[in-house]
């Protein structure tokens, strides 16, 4: 990628490294463990590569406060294990969980099935420190769950693909892990029936942690037939029994559980030339997306985000153009430079560019990583 590689060991070193490179007008590739190079815009050639993988400390963890502060390079899997040992969680369920760092999960705004109930990264982060190209460490938020002091600048870094600054420290609010977690899988013959089931669950008093909808090509990859609805519930045993009773009324329960967290990653590992389009649908559009596309689609039917998996980038390029709001979230690295990854950005792109220019006036940091528009 580049001549020089830096792996700073402290947030201060990270800031200094960025500041120094920027003062020399060197272009910078920023990442954690670079597990998601197929995600986002192309990783451009650069003068310096900066990795936050050396920042792995837990800075503060008092389980009784239900908060934690960790450095951005901490492997996600270690982070989850630490919390699990205290029966706590940050239920983002990101893909590439065993390779990713905490910072990478945030920078790519990765999330998974349980976001229906617990939200995405923007909902679980309570504070952060980031290193700027001026070589400074900036704090946003703090270590308490309610805090409105200062601007919530941290929100901008979530999903920014490292184009604004480098995440150095992240503070999360924590949840107690539920006593029991159970999955329920329902299968339907038609998209309409599956869509109706999703709707019935959403409108019921059940509050499942996850609510996913798969079309037959996606279901097939997991050895199932038809349109599949996957639900995860958490709670005490009588709550779980209640879910079972009510879900049975909604549709026939099939297998015990299907592995969804790494669905996309597994697909990409099988398809070297594959591409994944992320569709930002409304809740009511999600079943429609699932019904209309003929490639494997996993819809987070409780939040509207749909992932359509293509064996080749050409077909993906067509779907990303519409009718839904979409980006090509994963694409073959070799093709990225020529693909239109984000064909119809909103009118707010210009404001985003102003923010980019403010933080990176010489356009040095992760050039093009935000789907080639920033």
């Amino acid at each position: 990628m580049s001549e020089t590689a830096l792996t700073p060991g402290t947030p201060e070193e990270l800031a200094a490294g960025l500041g120094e490179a920027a003062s020399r007008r060197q272009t910078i590739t920023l990442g954690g463990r670079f597990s998601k190079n197929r995600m986002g815009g192309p990783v451009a050639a650069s003068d310096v590569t900066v990795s936050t993988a050396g920042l792995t400390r837990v800075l503060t963890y008092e389980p009784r406060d239900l908060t934690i502060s960790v450095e951005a390079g901490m492997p996600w899997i270690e982070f989850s294990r630490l919390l699990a040992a205290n029966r706590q969680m940050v239920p983002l369920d990101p893909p590439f969980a065993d390779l990713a760092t905490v910072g990478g999960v945030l920078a790519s705004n990765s999330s998974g099935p349980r976001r229906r109930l617990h939200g995405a990264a923007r909902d679980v982060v309570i504070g952060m420190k980031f290193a700027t190209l001026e070589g400074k460490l900036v704090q946003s938020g703090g270590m308490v769950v309610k805090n409105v002091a200062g601007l919530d600048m941290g929100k901008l870094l979530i999903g920014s693909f490292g184009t604004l600054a480098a995440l150095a420290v992240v503070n999360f609010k924590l949840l107690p892990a539920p006593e029991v977690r159970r999955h329920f899988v329902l299968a339907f013959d038609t998209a309409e029936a599956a869509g109706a089931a999703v709707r019935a669950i959403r409108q019921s008093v059940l509050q499942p942690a996850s609510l996913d909808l798969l079309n037959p090509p996606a279901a097939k990859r997991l050895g199932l037939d038809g349109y599949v609805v996957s639900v995860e519930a958490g709670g005490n045993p009588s709550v779980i029994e209640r879910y079972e009773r009510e879900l049975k009324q909604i549709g026939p329960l099939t297998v015990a559980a299907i592995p969804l967290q790494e669905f996309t990653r597994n697909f990409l590992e099988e398809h070297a030339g594959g591409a994944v389009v992320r569709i930002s649908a409304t809740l009511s559009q999600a079943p429609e997306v699932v019904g209309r596309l003929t490639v494997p689609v996993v819809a987070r039917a409780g939040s509207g985000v749909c992932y359509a998996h293509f064996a080749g980038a050409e077909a993906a390029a067509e779907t990303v153009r519409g009718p839904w709001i979409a980006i090509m979230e994963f694409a073959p690295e070799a093709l990225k430079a020529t693909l239109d990854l984000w064909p119809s950005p909103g009118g707010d792109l210009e404001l985003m560019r102003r923010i980019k220019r403010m933080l990176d006036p010489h356009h040095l940091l992760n050039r093009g990583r935000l789907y080639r528009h920033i």
Partner: protein
Amino acid sequence: MLSPEAKKKLAALLGPRGYLDRPEDLSLYEYDGSVDKARPEMVVFPRSTEDVVAIVKIAREHGVPLVGRGAGTGLSGGAIPRAGGITVGFARMNRILEIDLENERAVVQPGVVNLDITLAVQARNYFYAPDPSSQRACTIGGNVAENAGGPHTLAYGVTTNHVLGLEFVLPDGGLHNTGGKEGDLPGYDLTGLLTGSEGTLALVTKVIVRLMRQPEMVKTILAIYNAAEDCGRTVAEITARAITPVAVEMLDGVMLRMVEEATHAGFPMDAAAVLLIELEGLREAVEEQVEQIREVCQECRAREFRVARSAEERELLWKGRKNAFGAVGRVSPSYYVQDGVVPRTQIAPTLGVIGKVGEKYGLTISNIFHAGDGNLHPIILFDTHRPGDLEKAKNAGEEILRHCIDVGGSITGEHGVGMEKNELMDRLFSSDSLDMIRNFKLLFDPENRLNPGKVLPTGKGCLEIRQFALTGAAPIY
């Protein structure tokens, strides 16, 4: 100064009922729910986004400062026009534009009163989750600006977790949209940046919010204590046992007596403190958790444990809680509400510190707070007619907030920094962090005309230069 010419343009734009400029009318707009004051030169009431754009353009042309205003219930001076100029009141932009239950969304104008959203959807089993105690009066625009919370944010999150998109006008008159009804739109989260920006970056003209399905069961518990420490221990123990109430509110004895006298909600007059705990969810979960909490309360020496038996009983308890500040107003001529936050394990020791601060200044400090998330509202009672009292109250408040900072907390959990706590910001944030906030301010508002003099320290003594940079033309103070 607002020139006669600018005034004339605004008057022509809005018509005779669309603005106020007589001193006796303007004096109603010189304060909010906090203790500071400053008078606007004109108050305008746009009816549409187009009106707002036109107003902002006139202000720009004439170089006049602007401040947005919802219901004026803010508790940090957010809506006070510190540098004079135009106050933009959103009272007439109070329509719910769309209710889209299919997508669990509503689109509203900023002047919509918080509670009105829930009222509009509750018959169909939905609600809008952020529920500030002022929800009968405060507006969504004000909530977005302050990133308002409320008792139930313990479980459901604060305003920012429920706002998915915004339409807004920048100080240059540019109209923008960001976010939407859809999940995860690509790009930087501008909605997240603007929410909680205290009306200093943009005027919000439309808000897309999330609606939630009502839970099957709600149980409200009143636990009564003879010692405040036992109350604090209960909160810690609830967390330790992974019980997840949707609200845990604490009221101390002083507060209880004031509230009871005002509302007759059934709070005990002689207790040292009570907890108001709410559980929501599936019947099976709620019933079990009520018992778990009963156990904890008994172990922590609650002298009484009541579960509200009816919706009326429940509402009465909440009315007592939500009207608490009003109840204080009946007793004390003036009061000063703090909004510190501490890590949950610091709640009990912090109560001790607050008690000592009260003794030191000879002021009564009563406590009511969102105990579940460590957000304290010490209420300092004082009398403006007693010389030196306001000064003492402010100093006592500052001392409490310094303690919150020292134990790793924050100076504001939901009321905002405004013009009340901005001088403490440099205790909480490094100068590099404050500089970055300032950079964002100048990016959105290069002439510093939108709600100037808020959030960032205005600087004292040798730091006066900072304030100069912040206000553009001239220092305010």
